[in-house]
């Protein structure tokens, strides 16, 4: 094939259309220093043993791979349930804003948690519960009531009735049920009255108790807890007026008597002072995670160390390239173009000296030592080589001389 007729995918022998790593689609991969990943997974596995569910966090600057880490955890939880017995649910806390109605307070976070669960999940739990041996003998709502323990009697009874009335059968709209679950103020609803709902969710505590009770039911039905993987949690730095209710809700989640609903937060920032005050002060939440202000890194892992040495950076580059290059296709292309002596199939279109130079240049400046910068630079250089190749209708190898023009200002 003539180079002028190639697209970038052919030119770089990509196994995808663009030079990109997608946190969700590529969740299976985890690049960078293994030690960081190992420490995080060790903490999570220990949390399953000690706390029933993970209760921890990660932090890092933009581009360090926080979102990818959360999706990778989701992938692991789904693919290795015997090691990670929890249902992973991803949500994004941002944008929290106390000046915008509907974007603040625990109700806002609670709504995100329920949306992350979704109707299908709640139906699956309710129907699963209904199918359990022994639960078919009585009223479903009564059976649920016997098994849930968080909140006052009216709350437990209302939740049990609502779940049984709306989520077992597919016969009526769940709109009212969702409004109630999300804590909307419902003045009078004959539909909910008929279903046996006695009270609204008045406080953050009520809302959290609903989540904790759903966690308990999930444990009964699936033999696993729930873990909320909360991205962009630095948004909680915006919590001002609602600090007391939000701190208290997280405290309840951190309490040892909750062993069914866990969380892994991802915060933007460097240094452990990046953790939002609503979470870290007072340190009663931290103490329930088994840490203090001085050893907080035991529970909150810093992703900065994913790429901290020059070796880490070079390994990261190699891992990215080998993950997105179809090496068989690359071998064939190199043969076809008779440039096997210039390029290795798993590095196409980069020469070894170009990758060494790129590593040197990017490693020199600390803010460049992160996944996003490295991937974007590789993508940019690949595109430059491709565009030049197309213009000249010849394969342009990205060697150290070629990349020099692009890296001079880095």
């Amino acid at each position, binding site marked *: 094939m003539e180079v002028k007729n190639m697209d970038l995918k052919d030119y770089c022998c990509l196994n995808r259309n663009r030079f990109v790593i997608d946190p969700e689609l590529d969740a299976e991969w985890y690049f960078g220093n293994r030690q960081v990943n190992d420490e995080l997974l060790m903490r999570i596995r220990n949390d399953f043993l000690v706390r029933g569910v993970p209760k921890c966090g990660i932090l890092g*600057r933009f581009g360090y791979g926080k979102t990818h880490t959360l999706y990778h955890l989701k992938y692991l939880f789904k693919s290795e349930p015997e090691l990670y017995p929890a249902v992973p649910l991803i949500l994004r806390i941002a944008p929290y804003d106390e000046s915008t109605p509907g974007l603040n307070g625990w109700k806002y976070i609670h709504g995100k948690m329920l949306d992350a669960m979704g109707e299908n999940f709640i139906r699956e739990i309710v129907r699963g519960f209904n199918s359990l041996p022994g639960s078919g003998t009585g009223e479903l709502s009564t059976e649920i009531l016997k098994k849930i323990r968080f909140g006052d009697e009216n709350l437990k009874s209302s939740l049990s009735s609502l779940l049984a009335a709306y989520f077992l059968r597919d016969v009526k709209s769940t709109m009212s049920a969702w409004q109630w679950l999300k804590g909307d103020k419902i003045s009078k609803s004959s539909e909910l009255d008929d279903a046996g709902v006695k009270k609204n969710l008045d406080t953050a505590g009520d809302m959290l108790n609903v989540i904790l009770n759903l966690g308990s039911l999930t444990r009964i039905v699936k033999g696993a807890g729930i873990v909320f993987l909360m991205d962009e949690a630095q948004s909680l730095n915006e919590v001002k007026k609602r600090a007391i209710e939000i701190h208290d809700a997280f405290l309840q989640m951190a309490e040892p008597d909750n062993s069914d609903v866990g969380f892994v937060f991802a915060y933007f920032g*460097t*240094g452990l*002072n990046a953790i939002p005050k609503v979470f870290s002060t007072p340190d009663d939440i931290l103490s329930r995670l088994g840490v203090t202000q001085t050893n907080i890194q035991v529970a909150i892992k810093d992703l*900065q160390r994913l790429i*901290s*040495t*020059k070796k880490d950076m070079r390994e990261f580059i190699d891992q990215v390239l080998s993950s997105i290059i179809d090496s068989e296709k690359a071998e064939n292309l190199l043969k076809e173009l008779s440039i096997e002596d210039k390029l290795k199939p798993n590095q196409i279109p980069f020469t070894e000296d170009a990758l060494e130079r790129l590593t*040197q*240049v990017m*490693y*020199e*400046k*600390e*803010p460049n*030592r992160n996944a996003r910068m490295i991937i974007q630079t590789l993508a940019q250089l690949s595109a430059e080589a491709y565009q030049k190749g197309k213009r000249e209708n010849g394969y342009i190898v990205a060697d150290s*001389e070629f990349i*020099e*023009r692009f*890296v*001079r*200002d*880095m």
Partner: protein
Amino acid sequence: MKNEWEHNYVKIVQERGHEDFFLRFSLAHKITHLTIISPWITTLKDEQYTLNEIIKKINDENIETLVFMRSPFKEKHNMDSAELFFKCPTVTLYYNDELHAKVYICRCEPFGFALVGSANLSGRATRAHEIGLMIDGKGKGIDTIKELQNLSLHDLPNRSGTIKVDKQGGMKWK
């Protein structure tokens, strides 16, 4: 074209004073040495990088650090920061009341970087009109950083008016 990257070892810093330096410091790996030369140093409360965070990293990574500042007994704004430095075992603290230079040097993997400019290590400096030069440890920047470090190691401590703070004796009013 070749080695143009090495030639671009200096960049002008016109915004955020010392913030870029301490961002790089916070991300730097295998730091062997930090020098802070600034007549006025505050605790940087409410700044992106507080003095407590900087000192935590110095402590956690056992970074040999030299600090040159004006005496807190003459400049009251320096009192809180001097106390923090004083308590940090790897910090060697010097006072010089004639000091006017503002230089920050970090030696780390692969070589290090330095900031020379007008910004004091204070919160105001991140918002005021300051200008500085960020020097990267590449090309001729390597020699420049070495020279700057030599100034802090051998020249400044021996300048008239420089007093090494005796950490055994405690912070005393003179």
